[in-house]
């Protein structure tokens, strides 16, 4: 009898020890989280959706208030590093579209391990094997056109079609220095068609915009007829509103951009950050992202009508390592070719 108790005891201790050694999968401490009362979220997801996620979390009345700071991926990364350099730690949860940055941050110990509750059965493309981040959402870089200006039969069918001389002065391209999506897409396309592709693109004298989304109004108003690439979820939101725009799914494939989310090691509200991260990946919130035309890892969500499923598309993707290596040279080369 005594032995059994002892065995139970040892097993219990072992279990407790295991729980302590891998806090990555432990449930967040609600009481400590409530005491912290606040979570600051650095997010590169489009402003209305970022704000809505925060609002939905606050509506749950957990005693924790979500505050969102939305900006572009590159700018958030720069801001975080600058703050860290000055010893200022404000952000708790970090979410951008540049996997390369996350690799840097992991190796410089800016992130802590945490696997959000309920992500076990997620699409493997959305999980990381080390637990420092989980993919919160994914989308693609796609070309698009204005059907009022271009007939469907004349619209480009592939990436190669975009560099046809007939589009000279009629095309808009976003700058990779401001957009992680565009950088990612360019690396994919260069692998496919070489830098020659962008030499020809530069000869078309495209209008250069400062974010992937900024090309949308230019094409919607007819200032340009086609866009060389924008973010699929932003494009669908505009189409859904009734803007005269049509998506192009190039025959070569579409670059997939996955956007990780992680908890910062110097987070001033570490427990609240875990509670919020659990909420981010909850089915309810994942469905909300899907409703906004984003792709997520949760197997149970329903996507809006007309949105191509991940499995229906020919996806092109590059590893975080490759992204990290090619980020800077790609931007430099773009500047050389396009002059800005």
């Amino acid at each position, binding site marked *: 009898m005594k032995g059994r108790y002892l065995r139970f005891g040892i097993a219990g201790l072992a279990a407790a020890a295991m729980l302590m050694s891998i806090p990555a999968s432990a449930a967040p401490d609600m009481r400590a989280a409530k005491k912290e009362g606040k979570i*600051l979220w650095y997010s590169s997801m*489009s*402003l*209305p959706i970022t*704000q809505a996620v925060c609002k939905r979390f606050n509506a749950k009345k957990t005693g924790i208030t979500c*505050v*969102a*700071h*939305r*900006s*572009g991926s*590159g*700018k958030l*990364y*720069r801001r975080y*590093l*600058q*703050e860290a*350099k*000055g*010893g*200022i730690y*404000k952000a708790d949860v970090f979410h951008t579209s540049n996997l390369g*940055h996350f690799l840097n941050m992991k190796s410089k110990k800016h992130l802590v391990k945490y696997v959000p509750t309920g992500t076990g059965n997620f699409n493997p493309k959305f999980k990381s094997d080390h637990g420092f981040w989980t993919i919160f959402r994914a989308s693609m870089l796609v070309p698009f056109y*204005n059907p*009022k200006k271009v007939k469907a039969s004349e619209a480009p069918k592939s990436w190669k079609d975009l560099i046809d001389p007939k589009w000279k002065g009629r095309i*808009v391209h976003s*700058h990779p*220095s*401001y957009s992680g999506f565009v950088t990612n897409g360019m690396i994919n396309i260069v692998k496919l068609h070489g830098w020659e592709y962008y030499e020809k693109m530069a000869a078309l*004298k495209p*209008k*250069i*915009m*400062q*974010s992937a*989304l*900024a090309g*949308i*109004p*230019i094409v*919607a*108003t*007819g*200032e*340009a007829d086609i866009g060389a690439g924008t973010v699929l979820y*932003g494009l669908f939101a*505009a189409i859904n*509103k*009734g*803007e*005269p*725009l049509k998506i192009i799914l190039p025959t070569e494939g579409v670059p997939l951009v996955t956007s990780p989310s992680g908890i910062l090691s110097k987070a001033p509200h570490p427990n609240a950050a875990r509670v919020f991260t659990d909420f981010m990946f909850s089915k309810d919130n994942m469905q909300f992202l899907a409703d906004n035309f984003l792709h997520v890892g949760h197997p149970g969500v329903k996507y809006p009508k007309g949105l191509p499923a991940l499995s229906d598309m020919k996806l092109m993707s590059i590893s975080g390592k490759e992204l990290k290596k090619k*980020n*800077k040279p790609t931007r430099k080369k773009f*500047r*050389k070719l*396009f*002059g*800005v």
Partner: protein
Amino acid sequence: MTQAVPPIGGLGSTGSASWFRRVDFTSAVWVIVLVLLVLLVVLPIYFLFQESFLRDIDDVWQFSFGNYVEAFSDPIYYGPIATTFVISLFAGVFSLIIGAGMAWCVSRTDMPYTGLVRNSVLAAFVTPPFLGAIAWILLAGPRAGWLNVLFRWITGLSQDFSLFNIFSLPGVIFAITLYTFPLVFIVVLAGLNNISSDIEDAANIAGGGTFSTMINVTLPLVLPALFAGLILAVLEAMILFGIPAILAIPAGYHTMTTQLRQFMVSEDDMLGVAGAYAMPMLIAAIWLIWMRGKALGRRGYATVGGKGGVRRPQKLGSWRYPVFFLCLFPVICTLGLPYVALSATSIMKTLGGGFVWSNLTFEHYIFMINNDGVRESFFNTVGLALMAATGAATVASIASYIVQRKLVRGHSFMGFMATAPIGIPGIVLAVGLFAAYTKQPFVLYGTLWILFLAYLTKYLPLAYQTSNAALTSIHPELEECSRILGANRLQVFRDVTIPLFKAGLIASWILVFMPSLRELSASILLWTTDTKVISVVIIDLYEENLFGPISAIAVTLLVITLLAIAAGFRLVGKDFMKAG
């Protein structure tokens, strides 16, 4: 010495008044202002210099010229320098012609509706230039701009023809001029209003016509203000960020400011390169300010004496209405057309749907009202603008008084300090402030204070130039008179100078308040989650492609501005912004 000084004039020798008279705080005030100026101006520049010589070599930060080599050896960075030069030169000259011409018409002629013109220019001044740029894309985009569509509809030309192309160098110069000429207008107007008509009357009596009086009498008298205006316009065009970011980059041009921003948002730490790249701008600005001082020399233009003086308008005769319509034209381009475009966009569901009944909506206004970020940023912006305007007007008036009256040795240094920040692009100033105030024990980052410091420093030269121009024309004889009667410096300043100078003080307050409402280039680097300002919100929305809410905010801002100007008239009377 403890005996009370006999009371002057009608002043009773009540306790506090006599104490105030006995102790001369003059030197203490001078020292405080000087220290403040040094802190405000020198600190960020010092950190800018420091950063420009620091480089990360093998993970160690050390002294190096590497940043300068990197900033000035790559051919891709030469272009922006030339572009900036061309833009600021042309925009400066055009602004001078338009601004000074309009100021003369408003101040010196019997042109009808001068009040309307003056207030429209004021409203133009508070319109954020980046909003204007966004509106002008809708108006003068080469293919879909409304003006071009109208032009093609009238002429029947095909889509390859366009009358205007806002995405071009002339387009950028045009847009910048629209938002820098009000600076010249305000400065020159203040100068003109300080010249009494006696002198012009004398010219008229001696047989000079309207035009020759203007050229031979009024113009030389207003020369200091003209120079001040031109320099302000050239510098403002040089350091402007919003318009080039929105119009020049799509056209394939970088200016120095957008290039600086590119360094700053780069994923690598390019703070030092940005610091090095900012140096030519700093040098150019200092050179311009020095040239201005040299050109004006020691010539005095004291025209406000103790002998009164009336301003009488020049007769334009049959030219009254043509001149009025000519003055209206820049205002239409700055305010009328853009706000028509923005108002229309603010109630359009989709941009591509056109201005038809089925495409109209109020959803953008609802978005704006329901958005916490927008609401908070409105409060932050207005609070900051109030603080910055009060701070800058106070510091600037004291500093310009010291400089004008040559009260302390090295007074010209003080003047230099107060004008120097104009050569620091907002975005560079922000870098300096960031470096200075993210370190213990003065962690101001993340508070409104760091933005306050940025605004105060950035707009100090505006306030200083205005105070200076106004003070130049107040003859010291009035002050000397009170000094002889026994008042000390501070008393003279309070009882004689300030009342004479009130209009100049108000003008400099407004000159800081209005641009503070729309400050972008420093804010874009210093904002944090709790300290967002409206300009940053608008740029955010622009990058997110939310033209509707931007337009709704723009229209709301305009309404607030017009209300503020109306309130100004109520409070200050018709002398509001009339300077003199």
